[in-house]
């Protein structure tokens, strides 16, 4: 569910790192757009990366700096990686496989399923009952958190993506309850899906909920790059703040407003590793 309106399902996940503190938000599209007053300047209306905005910040700041082109590319890469890690709405195939695992073939008998569903929605039975019957009739192992829209078959991938992400791993469909009972995760993605819960469990069972020790070289490289980006961002922020102070003391409020906007943009920059 969206954290702001609490009505629509959450399809936009936002992870922020503000002064070293990570925060997360799960919003519906409407609320995310409404909130997008400069907080997410790199995303356009379709929540894709906005190159112009990026260039405005990094390009305009150092127009002569050749490094910046590389930096931008690096940043883009990091941002893309970010997207990989964050639970994005699952693809149609993933959903289809999930449904087929649950004994529902949406590929071939999607229409049947819908007809079946419509039939169960007789005018004399109220909606809640109809759902219950349907769930019992098809012997669906899904739990109740599955949104109704998912079974309506209108926008299955979208609808399913919303709540399944919250309750089960989007890749393999393992629920937290199952993971806990079984003592085993279904796939690597489970560690992303149940990150907070696992951190909580690990900090009890293990020495610490933070890995130390051997790291694959690719991960090392990535870690170094993220650190580099982070320091660059912090550095820039520091500089902007100093200029802001200068502008304020000089009572140059027009400039100050501009600088403040830039600071806002830079602080909302995502330079994080895991969602």
């Amino acid at each position: 569910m969206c954290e702001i309106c609490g009505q629509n399902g959450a399809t936009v996940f936002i992870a922020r790192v503000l002064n070293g503190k990570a925060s997360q938000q799960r919003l519906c599209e409407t609320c995310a757009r409404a909130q997008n007053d400069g907080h997410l300047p790199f995303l356009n209306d379709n929540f894709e990366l906005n190159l112009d905005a990026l260039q405005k910040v990094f390009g305009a700041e150092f127009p002569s700096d050749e490094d910046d082109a590389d930096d931008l590319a690096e940043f883009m890469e990091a941002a893309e990686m970010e997207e990989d890690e964050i639970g994005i709405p699952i693809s149609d195939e993933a959903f289809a496989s999930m449904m087929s695992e649950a004994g529902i073939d949406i590929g071939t008998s999607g229409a049947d399923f819908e007809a079946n569903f419509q039939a169960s929605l007789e005018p004399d039975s109220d909606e809640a009952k109809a759902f219950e019957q349907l769930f019992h009739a098809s012997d669906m192992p899904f739990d109740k958190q599955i949104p109704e829209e998912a079974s309506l078959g209108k926008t299955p991938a979208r609808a399913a993506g919303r709540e399944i992400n919250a309750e089960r791993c989007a890749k393999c469909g393992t629920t937290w309850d199952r993971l806990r009972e079984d003592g085993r995760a279904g796939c690597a993605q489970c560690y992303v899906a149940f990150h907070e819960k696992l951190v909580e469990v690990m900090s009890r069972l293990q020495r610490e909920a933070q890995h130390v020790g051997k790291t694959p070289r690719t991960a090392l490289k990535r870690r170094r790059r993220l650190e580099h980006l982070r320091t660059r961002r912090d550095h820039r922020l520091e500089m902007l703040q100093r200029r802001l102070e200068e502008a304020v003391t000089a009572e140059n409020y027009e400039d100050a407003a501009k600088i403040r906007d830039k600071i806002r943009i830079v602080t909302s920059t995502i330079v994080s590793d895991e969602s």
Partner: protein
Amino acid sequence: MQAPHLLSHFDRTARWMRRGGHENDVVLASRVRLARNFRRWEFPHRAPTGDLLLVRHKVFTALPHIALDSGVALEKTLTGAGLLPFEEFTAWERQSLVDRHLTSREHIREEAGRGLIATPDSSLALLINEEDHLRLQSLLPGLQLDAAYSLVDKLDDAIEKHFDGRGALAYSETFGYLTACPTNAGTGMRASVMLHLPALEIAGRIERARKLAKDKGFALRGTFGEGSKIWGNLHQISNQTTLGVDEAEILLEVENAAREIVEMERQARRACNKRLLDEARDSVGRAYGVLRYARRLGTREATDQLSMLRLGLELGWVKGLSRQRFNELLVWIRAAYLQVLHGRLLQSDERDILRANLLRSHMVRVRLDPILIREESFDETGSDEPHLANPGDAVSL
């Protein structure tokens, strides 16, 4: 009809049975296992068979490249390694791999898509689609966790170099190497030491050792993994923590804990010469009698008696057998090993006879120290029956 071709992959005497390492009087072997997974596929317990086959195929075909990347010393070892897809072997043959401590009981339970790459001396193995996609294992004699780790670490580097070009291995900054069981995540490493603790058993102090291990955060359990029974006083101590500690620290901690238990066992062994003399002589003498003369022996009994006879060896009461032979016999008497060796289906009682035959043939060489044979004066115990006089210092049989 199964041919005993599985055995053609392996030396009769594995590396861990031979001489090497430290504290050999108590420590049989050191093992280090690393768990690694691919990001792309679900973990083996959940993945469809097709994916399991794919994973195994990728690893099998990658082996020559991995061998090339793994440095001079390992390259030679790895090129001689056998590729064993489990579908090709019978349940007995797979069980014999467990008996050799090459893999786990969980691994051989299912055959589809499971497999093993192992060097002939069993010192290095790659378990495919066990609980995790890959488990790298090295098994060396005595206490030498460092050497075992460096072996497996090199193999891990080579595997990473081959597969992890674009982050194909499941790894997270927070949880380290991701594993099917979250309790293994982090380093993904399990370091274990196989210990022989017969004197602690006689002294009735085994529970104290178990508690000591537990208090330090380690598990002391049977040698065939979680939930396995303790036969022949063989125990295995291993780390329980894998996250928030680095490899070197784990190795050091396990080694220290193992040394402490080794010290406890040695203390109990010293007591076997004094306070526990009667109990120890009873156990060792009984073991010799059974192994030397029994005509039918089950695995359990044979293992337990071998254990006690080995205690006699360590106390200097039994001569004529080497530690290596004891290690070998521990494996050679196991049901699946006999089965595969003989290449035909044996009934349980037939195996018992073969086992007893094998053991008798080795016991022929055993000589006993006078301490086991000499009769003390019976005045104190008030025995009035005349006993046979002791014929000599050492009796060879």
